[in-house]
């Protein structure tokens, strides 16, 4: 906490030097000067400050209040843990968590592994890297409604391209989004296609930073490709890999748009109801803001650990 005190003293000498040579300026007290400097500085800050206060900090505080309040016809009353009880006793509560966890695990298998492997493969080629990079990132730039509805058509059991494709390999047709067993998997595959570009490019940049001598040394020890990946590539990119892993967990636990657009949210037999979809339902279908806030608070607490780990790791990365 000594750092904030440091900065004004650091700035002070330069101001003196800069104002003296002018000479004609009448000497002002350092207090007035300081005040003026601070007023200017806060003047620059004020726009962002107001926006943060209104649309970030105030809602953050409100989230905590809402979770323990109830609003009836504009009348606000404290209800203690009632909202939490409502949420936990909701028959879909555990299913929503189960689905969200399933999505997260599947999204990690696909969304974490696939971009890494893709980056490894692209990095091996001496040609066409720019083209491959472009391709991988292309879906990220599509508006979600386009990519999601596109997948809805591809998945269609009647005329979808996907059934046609797997039929070509002699596999049985699937119902994809309409079957509770495959609905979540289908959502994850679509979501991976839409979102993996960013991760793949970040991994690629990390791979290009690995010193070539490390691979040479590994070869002298007789290491094959897999061992080189295990003993050189992964340890060298460990920090980025763990940062991306945490970021993925944080963002996939909040999945909403993909299931909402692909299956209408709940999906067949509630198989794609996620926690955030449940929050959405409480707030905007049932007008129960208290329950929505209570469930949000649970999600926040769960993700706070991951967020804290992320911040700690990214500090390490910056130093």
């Amino acid at each position, binding site marked *: 906490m000594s750092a904030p005190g440091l900065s004004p003293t650091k700035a002070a000498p330069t101001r003196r030097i800069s104002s003296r040579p002018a000479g004609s300026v009448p000497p002002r007290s350092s207090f007035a000067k300081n005040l003026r400097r601070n007023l200017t500085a806060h003047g620059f800050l004020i726009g962002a400050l107001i926006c943060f206060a209104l649309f970030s900090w105030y809602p953050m505080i409100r989230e905590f209040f809402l979770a323990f309040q109830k609003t009836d016809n504009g009348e606000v009353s404290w209800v203690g843990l009632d909202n939490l009880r409502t949420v936990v006793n909701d028959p879909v509560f555990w299913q929503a968590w189960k689905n969200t966890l399933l999505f997260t695990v599947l999204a990690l298998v696909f969304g974490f592994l696939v971009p890494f492997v893709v980056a490894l493969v692209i990095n091996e080629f001496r040609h066409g890297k720019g083209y491959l990079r472009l391709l991988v990132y292309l879906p990220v730039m599509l508006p979600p409604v386009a990519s999601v509805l596109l997948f809805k058509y591809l998945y269609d059991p009647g*005329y979808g391209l996907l059934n046609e494709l797997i039929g070509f390999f002699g596999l049985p047709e699937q119902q994809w989004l309409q079957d509770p067993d495959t609905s979540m998997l289908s959502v994850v595959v679509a979501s991976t296609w839409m979102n993996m570009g960013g991760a793949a490019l970040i991994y690629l940049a990390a791979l290009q930073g690995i010193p070539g001598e490390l691979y040479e040394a590994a070869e002298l020890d007789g290491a094959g490709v897999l061992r080189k990946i295990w003993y050189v590539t992964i340890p060298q990119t460990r920090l980025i890999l763990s940062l991306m892993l945490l970021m993925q967990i944080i963002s996939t636990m909040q999945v909403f748009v993909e299931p909402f657009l692909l299956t209408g949210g709940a999906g067949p037999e509630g198989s794609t109801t996620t926690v955030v979809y449940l929050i959405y339902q409480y707030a905007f279908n049932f007008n129960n803001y208290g329950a929505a806030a209570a469930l949000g608070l649970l999600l926040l607490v769960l993700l706070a650990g991951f967020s804290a780990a992320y911040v700690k790791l990214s500090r390490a990365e910056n130093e």
Partner: protein
Amino acid sequence: MSTRTLISPAQLARPRGKLIYWISFAVVVGGFTLVFLGPLYWLVTSGFKSAQEVIQTPPTLVPGSFEADNYTRAWEVMDLAKLLFNTLYYAFGALAFQLIFDVAAAYSLSKLRPIFGKAILGMMLATLMIPATVLVVPQYLTVLDVPVVERNLLNTPWAIWLPSVTNAFNIFLLKRFFDSIPKELLDAASMDGASPMRTLRSIILPISRPILGVVSIFAIVGVWKDFLWPMLTLPDPAMQTLNVGIYSLSNGVPANVLIAALTIASIPTLLIFLIFQRNIMAGLTAGGLKG
């Protein structure tokens, strides 16, 4: 010049290595093209198909009918001109607000260093720790009745513009960039009697063009891709964005027209991507890692 990777150059130099390299290269390029461009190809061509052909099994690879008319119908039926205009209006408005307020804030925190500056930055960065979806409900309630000014921002562009300023990550990126600008440069300016505003305009901003480009692109793409927030805050069909508007009309139009509309909706961001590819990729690796 190539850097050293998993497969050694010696292995690649052998005839067998060369053969394997080119075969796998062809497979990967073909596979990636199929996986990433294939769906887009399907999207664009299906927009030209007739209503029966779109839902025909097996699907046709090359459209048997050529109805360019679908695109004009999509444009008219879904009123895409209006949706497109709305989205552009929100996106560029958000960009302007972010550039003005976030740049000014980052400049102040980095160079003017007011009291409580560190605490303010800390509180801004703390918002990154809160899952965005959790805040949606209280933010929505705030937009319905903004404290102090007591305004309802529902169905107004302000509901998009003002919250877009609360992008702590942008402020962090900008501040980090401003931090790297040498102090001597600014001292020289203030010795010449330049005001902070003047210094920002004539020294900081010209140097910061790369980071401003990155921030701008992500600001626009962010609004363009957003779905939940505009769906909640702009429910009036006359005010909707492309994403929300097309989604809400998606059940009422024939498949081929809807697909044509999706193709049109995809063009602007794809264009932005193809034009600013380098900046986007640079921004991704510069900012992406070091959140």
